[in-house]
Each structure stands twice: as structure tokens, then as C-alpha cells.
């Protein structure tokens, strides 16, 4: 597989009882690119993200990450190795402050032992200082610096989405998987989110996999788009190609009567 391919899924199949949610799905994400997955409701987009991130089942097929087979790796190990995702339904830690939420993101790479914490060793203090610096920097990146000390549950919906992004960034990913990050945001917020995703891609060099319904956003920022329909990939291409693809138009608008 070429050097530039970060994530390659081949022949993914997921079945829930009698429903074949995904069948023979091939999907690749190129390094440093924004790759989007679109498709009508129930097409299997979230099922695909769950399989990739290890949070859902994957019955057949293989998932290769940088050439390594991670098909059966548990979710937390995938996260540890740099594959970090956000969720369609907000999953902020409501029992923590905004800053602590982001600090939790550093879990895997700022490490000190249980005993360091209990005895408050210098390693604990230096670790905590580093975690705090990283968290503050990420909060600044998404524009939430002013809210650092307040409880996460008190943030507005849009800000909670940004908080999720900051937490994901704090986990130091190389692959960021975003599951409908614009859901529930107004137009202005969606625009800001799009700019932020582009910045994460350009400034931080992150590879991004994006599932989204907002077509304006998708067409504006994606480098490549895969279209899922009834659990199968029906088209892959640049935004321009996808917009003209007759199969995609049919999937979204339905077939002509005659």
C-alpha cells in the first residue's frame, strides 16, 4: 500500500440480525487529507465509523492503519495509537470542568503512575503542569479559553461540540474521526466549525475523516468523498465528481418515474 494511505479498510461487513448494515465496504483515508463519508439516513455511516474506531462490531474485512492490521484491536488502544473520534450525540464529561474535560484527553501520553498521584511526587506535578498547558492550548485553539473553569454541562450546545474537538485534539491524534460535528449547529457556527476543521488539517497536519449531512460544509472542505448507500460504497471521488455522479443523485433524490 502506498506511503500516503493512512487508513485502508477492505471488504468491511457488519450485520445486525437480519440487517446487513455494511457489505464489502472499501474505504481509504490519505495522509493529510480530509476524507468525507456521506449518504442518506441509515446508509451505515456511523456503523462504518464505529467499526473503524473499534466501538462497534466488524464481522468481515480488515482495517489497516499505517500498514498494521488493527481489525481486532480494542477501541482504547486505537485511540492510544492516534486514532481519535468524536460523537454524533454529545459525549462531554458533564461531571468535570471544561478544562478537566480537555485534560482527560491527554490520558494516554502524559503518564505517571498511580503511586505518583497518591504520593504527589515531582513526576505528578510536572505531568499535571504539562497536561494543563496542553489543555489550555487546545481550548485556545477552539476558542473556549474563557470558559475553562466552568462546569462542562453549563456550556451551550455549540460550545460543547467545540469542547469535544478540543478534547480530541488534546489526545494528540494523527487521524481524527468526526461524526456529524455540525449536527445541531446554526449556520454561523457551522461556518466556524468548517474553518476550524480546515485549520486542524492545514496547521496541525491532521488527517481527517468526516461524516456529515451539511452538504455545503462537505463540498467546501473535503478533498475526497465516499458515498455510502444501503451499506455499500456507490461512489468515490472529489467533491466536483461526486456532485455530478448520476448514482449519487439517484441515491439522494430517487429515480425518475419513467
Amino acid at each position: 500500500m502506498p506511503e500516503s494511505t493512512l487508513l485502508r479498510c477492505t471488504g468491511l461487513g457488519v450485520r445486525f440480525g437480519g440487517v446487513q448494515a455494511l457489505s464489502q465496504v472499501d474505504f481509504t483515508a490519505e495522509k493529510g487529507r480530509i476524507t468525507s463519508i456521506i449518504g442518506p439516513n441509515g446508509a451505515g455511516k456511523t456503523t462504518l465509523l464505529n467499526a473503524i474506531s473499534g466501538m462497534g462490531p466488524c464481522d468481515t474485512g480488515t482495517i489497516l492503519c499505517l500498514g498494521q492490521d488493527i481489525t481486532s484491536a480494542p477501541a482504547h488502544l486505537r485511540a492510544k495509537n492516534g486514532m481519535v473520534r468524536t460523537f454524533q450525540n454529545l459525549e462531554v464529561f458533564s461531571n468535570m470542568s471544561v478544562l478537566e474535560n480537555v485534560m482527560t484527553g491527554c490520558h494516554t501520553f502524559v503518564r505517571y503512575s498511580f503511586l505518583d498521584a497518591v504520593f504527589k511526587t515531582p513526576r505528578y506535578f510536572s505531568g499535571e503542569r504539562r497536561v494543563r498547558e496542553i489543555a489550555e492550548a487546545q481550548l485556545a485553539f477552539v476558542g473556549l479559553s474563557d470558559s475553562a473553569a466552568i462546569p462542562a454541562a453549563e456550556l451551550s450546545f455549540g460550545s460543547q461540540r467545540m469542547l469535544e474537538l478540543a478534547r480530541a485534539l488534546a489526545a494528540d491524534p494523527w487521524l481524527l474521526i468526526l461524526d456529524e460535528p455540525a449536527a445541531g449547529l446554526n449556520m454561523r457556527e457551522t461556518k466556524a466549525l468548517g474553518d476550524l476543521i480546515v485549520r486542524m488539517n492545514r496547521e496541525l497536519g491532521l488527517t481527517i475523516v468526516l461524516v456529515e449531512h451539511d452538504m455545503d460544509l462537505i463540498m467546501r472542505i473535503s478533498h475526497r468523498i465516499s458515498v455510502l448507500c444501503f451499506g455499500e460504497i456507490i461512489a468515490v471521488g472529489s467533491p466536483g465528481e461526486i456532485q455530478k455522479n448520476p448514482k449519487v443523485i439517484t441515491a439522494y433524490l430517487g429515480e425518475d418515474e419513467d
Partner: protein
Amino acid sequence: MDSFRKNLLGLAALMALLAVAPLLLGNDYYLTVLTLSAINAIIVVGLNLLLGHAGQISLGHGAFYGLAAYTSAILTATLGLPVFLGGLAGVLCAGVVALAIGIPTLKLHGHYLAMATLGFGLIVYIVFNEAVGLTGGPSGFTGIPRLSLAGMELTSDLGYYYLCAGCLGLVILVALNLIDSRTGRALRALHTSEKAAQAVGVDIARYKLAVFVLSALYAGLAGVLYAHYLTFIAPASFGFLYSVELIVMVVLGGMSSIFGSVAGAFFLTALPEFLRAFENIEILLFGAILIVCMIFLPEGLAGGVRAVRARLFRRAKGAGDA
């Protein structure tokens, strides 16, 4: 670090209060109540980590408490081991059993986890009752030696009370330090969203197991202190009702506050003793007080204190402005 200093200050205040309490209450009976309160508080601090911070319920902590008490009792009274060794073995026994029980049960969630731990508690309770040769059965186990430290038997009740209070201080310090660390954040994270915790790389199975074992070790420490304090133990002290009582202490004290839980433990251990005066309606009053507490302090004693402090602060600020 700011919160660290605040925690130490709170702990110092609590320890000072515990130190002067027996002097103010100069009465052997009160001293017993205080000692038992401190012992209960040790378990409750562990349960607070498990339930209040990691969000995992256990209705079987009475069993860990009992396992440690019986292990230490059997090793010291029956086999004649030094109390120090017996106690250590008791605490370890609770931890090892928690490890063995935790691996399969912590895969369960919510009510199912409650059921599994409840079942475990009942099984242990039945064993205490039925293994008469080992435990003395329902009539109890007598003749447990008092704790001795460095060859000196701790005979004075006041000394024993200070030992329990010291242990309580230590377990509180460990718990507070843990909460304010990456471990604590991982626990609080898996409480609210297991998915999101995994997404940032938290091995949730490992953390659940670790906090379960830690809380069992706390219960074990309390069990050992209990057995060598009363020198007599019986299965009735370690049953299902006791496990529920512990949960009530955590909830009444305030789920997310260690100090609140300690207050809950002291309050609920002492309350029945003071209600004894009302003989026939004792249980009725106990229930009524609990209901009133939960209506007016939905976030527990700790939440109540926070609310009062916030109101005073506002008033002070208002006076300052005017």
C-alpha cells in the same frame, strides 16, 4: 496546586475535629460510636470513589468488610498469628476476592452490576453462617485479640479510636490525591461516558477493576479494624442491610464529595444511637429523617453545605456592594 492545598486544609480541619471530639464527648459510649463511625467512614470513602466518581454500584461491600474481618480473626485467634500479619492478610484477602469477582461482574452495567454484587454479598453471608467450624456460625466468633503495635497491645479505647481516625485520614488523603490526577479523571470520565472515555484512550475495564479492588481494600482495612476492636464478630454485621446502609451513607453525604461521604458515615452511624431514646418509633424516625434529608438536600450533606456557603457569599457580596 490550588485544589491540593484546599484538600489538605479540609483534611487538617477534619483531623483536628476528630482529635478533639472524644475530649468534648468524654464518655466511653460516645467513644465507641465515634470509633465505629470512623471505621464505617473508611469503607464509605472507598465506596465514594467507586459509586460517586466511577459510577459503579456495589451492593456487596459488606461482604468484603466481613471477609477481611473473618480472615484476620481466624488467622489470629484460631491459628495464633500476630495481629499485624492477620490484619494484612485480611485486607489482602478482600482485595484478591474483589479482583476475582470484579473481572466477570464489572462487564455488567447498572442494575445488573447491582444484582451481581448483591448475589456475591449474599453468598458470602451464607458462608459466614454455615461454615460453623471456621467462623463460629450465626452465634459469632469470639476471642479475637486486640490489635498490637510493635509488641504493645493497644488496650485503651481512646488509643484505638485515634488509630482508626488516623487510618481514616490516610485513606481520605489517598482518595483525594487520586481524584485530582489522571487516574481520577479517567474514573470520572467513564462515569459519564464510557464511549468518550475509550475514545481518548482510557482502558475502561482496567480502571473499573482497579477502583473496585481499591474500594474493597478500604472495606478490608475497616473490617480488620472492626474485628480487632470489638474482639467479637457475627455474620449479622456483614449482611445485605449493612451493604445498603453504606450506599445510603455515600448518597446522603453527597456522591461527588469525599468529605460529604465521611459526614454521611458519621451521621448515619450516630443517628440510630441517639434515636434509641425513642424506643418504639426509632426506625420510623430514622426513615423520616432520611426522607427529609433527601427532599431538602438532594445533593447530600456536601451539596447542602455548598448551597449555604454560596448564599452567605452572595449576601456578603451584596452587603459589600451596598
